[in-house]
């Protein structure tokens, strides 16, 4: 088999297509990076090469950090995404575990209900959600989105985790219980630790969606000090019809760095997690 992999095969089967995919994925980022390092005069110059920087300048980064609450937004985003992810994982696994591993009355109905909940469009929910948040006096607090994001995430997470929980053989738990462990103990000490990659994958998925969320954040977070990255940059770097292109792009890159780091660190688990969820779910 290995012998078949001649350089020609390697070139057309691997390197060229790989190059195509990498270029497709990255060319907008190279553009973003170039724009964030250009002065506006150069950006607007119709004769300048869009992918080349004649006079690199950090002015947009400096302005972004000095004149806006960008770092606060990043911190808010991380905090919100972390809490929302944690709540979603907790509730999602409480939902998924019995559905995946136990028989109880109402289980099929519950499973269908969970599947249907992710068909509910966010656009249907925003008016009632605004009302709910208003009643709880949570407007303009990070709690507002920490509580609403899990409603978007729990159904997805439960579904992803169900696939995972199913992969662990039932005998493991039965054996433990024969040996005198309670159900709770069997779950927390034996099954859940085995599903750690699943939690990581679901967690990363939830984290990505939370930090990207736009609608609820737009509606509930109007104060600059509680904004998340997407809302903050739109609110303060889009002024009327004038876009602060360089700062927007600097924000896009700086805002993605933390997540990119998390991804490259966990990407192995992420891949593994998705598979288990997908194949068995």
């Amino acid at each position, binding site marked *: 088999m290995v012998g078949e992999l001649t350089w020609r095969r390697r070139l057309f089967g691997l390197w060229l297509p790989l190059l195509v995919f990498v270029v497709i994925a990255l060319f907008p980022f190279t553009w973003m990076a170039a724009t964030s390092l250009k*002065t*506006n*005069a150069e950006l*607007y*110059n*119709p004769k300048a090469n869009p992918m080349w920087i004649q006079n690199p300048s950090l002015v947009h980064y400096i302005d972004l950090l000095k004149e806006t609450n960008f770092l606060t937004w990043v911190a808010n985003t991380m905090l919100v995404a972390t809490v929302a992810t944690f709540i979603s994982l907790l509730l999602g696994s409480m939902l998924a575990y019995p559905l995946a591993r136990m028989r109880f009355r109402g289980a099929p109905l519950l499973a269908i209900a969970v599947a249907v909940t992710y068909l509910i469009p966010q656009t249907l929910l*925003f*008016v009632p959600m*605004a*009302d709910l*948040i*208003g*009643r709880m*006096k949570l*407007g*303009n607090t990070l709690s507002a989105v920490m509580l609403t994001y899990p409603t978007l995430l729990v159904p997805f997470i439960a579904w992803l985790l169900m696939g995972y929980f199913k992969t662990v053989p039932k005998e493991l738990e039965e054996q433990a219980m024969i040996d005198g462990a309670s159900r709770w103990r069997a779950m927390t000490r034996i099954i859940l630790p085995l599903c750690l990659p699943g939690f990581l994958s679901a967690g990363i998925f939830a984290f990505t969606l939370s930090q990207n969320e736009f609608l609820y954040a*737009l*509606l*509930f977070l*109007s*104060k*600059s000090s509680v904004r998340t990255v997407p809302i903050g940059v*739109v*609110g*303060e770097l*889009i*002024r*009327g*019809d*004038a*876009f602060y292109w360089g700062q927007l792009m600097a924000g896009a890159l700086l805002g993605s760095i933390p997540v990119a780091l998390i991804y490259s660190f966990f990407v192995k688990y992420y891949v593994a997690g998705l598979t288990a969820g997908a194949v068995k779910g």
Partner: protein
Amino acid sequence: MHATYRGKRMAQPTQSKATRRSFLKLAAAGAAGVAAGPWVSRNAQAKPVSITFARESSYVKNFDVHFQNVMAPAYEKATGIKIEYQIQAAGGSAVPQLVSMVENKSGADLAWVQQEWLYRDALVDVSDIAEEVGKQQGGWYDEIKLLSVDKGKWKSVPNGNIGQVMVYRKDWFDEAGVKSFPETWDAFLEAGIKLKAKGHPFGMSMGHGFADNYSWLYPLLWSYGVTVMDKTAKKVALDSSETAKAVEYVKRLYKEACIEDCIGWLDPANNKAFLTSQISCTNNAYSIMVSAKRDLPDMGKVIAHGLNPKGPNGQRYHALVPVTHGVFAHSKDPQAAKDFLRWMMDPKQYRPWIASGDMYFAPYLHGFDKAPEWDIEPRVKPFQKALETGKLTSWPAPANRQHGEVVNRWIVIDMFTKACTGTPVKAAIAEAVKQLKTIYG
């Protein structure tokens, strides 16, 4: 004067011949002098800790800076109340935020109430302030009352009109032999054809934006003698042979004088195209000139503002883009918010504030018709004319929720775009008329 300062007894500053510099000095002193004003005593009992004020983020940086660095601290110093200044993106995302504030009864105490017909019921009566300001500063333009006055009561205090005029490259126009900005739409088309031939097409926004599309299409329609609805909003007035002529005109203008892309443009797109030298003319607010002056000094010198051309009915129109301030009934202390609004509209605060924005916010007050502030940047003077010939997009019908629906479904704009993309003119008009009947029906 500072110690005895009282709003009502203010000298009419609009009649003063003060230069800008001395005026600013005066204003700064005035702001400091407020400490002895009537607010202190009143707020000694009520004492809200802070007031939240939501407003569009301005592309004239100075304008926000002036508010944050001069006005807000002055008010805090005078009354002990901190002003939380919340800035929002304009257009598509400000209205949802305001709607959400009204629906969940939290957020700002007062705000720029974009599309205020949506939440008039959630605003308190501010007639006392509006009438006082009007009396003091030369009287309000009638046109704005159609928006701010509802059932005989002022629901908002107009702050200013964002002037929308023709923005063009004087150098390229000269080169093409167009020495002065066209006076009629026909001449405008002719000029466009010449400029496009030279590689400098026009870029007239026609997409699902929030201002740059209305600001020329509605005035164009009006100058053909057509309005969308009649005065009572009972009868669709668009169904007319003149409409067909206007649509045919836009079709020609688009095909023969414009860049193809402009049909889908949102509001930032024409700024981008203009600043990157792709178009020679568009309809926009002050933002293009501001960016050019800051980032592209050479272009900054050759940009000029022109008025919307006249139509077959010999009239010239502009679309008003009003910014009005309203106080939410859900505010914990609407009175405190009103006090702040009154203070903000006082000439001592108001004049330097709008002057800090080079007058790109034209006050709806006749007292400013000949104000010295118009000389700060002579090229913004057309904004004053735009105000004089300006109409609300609902004109002559009231600015109400039905009108909001027409605007937010882009019914009239899309009538033009459909015709430009191949729908027969009659069919495009018929479709729009049908939709209007459903909405107003």
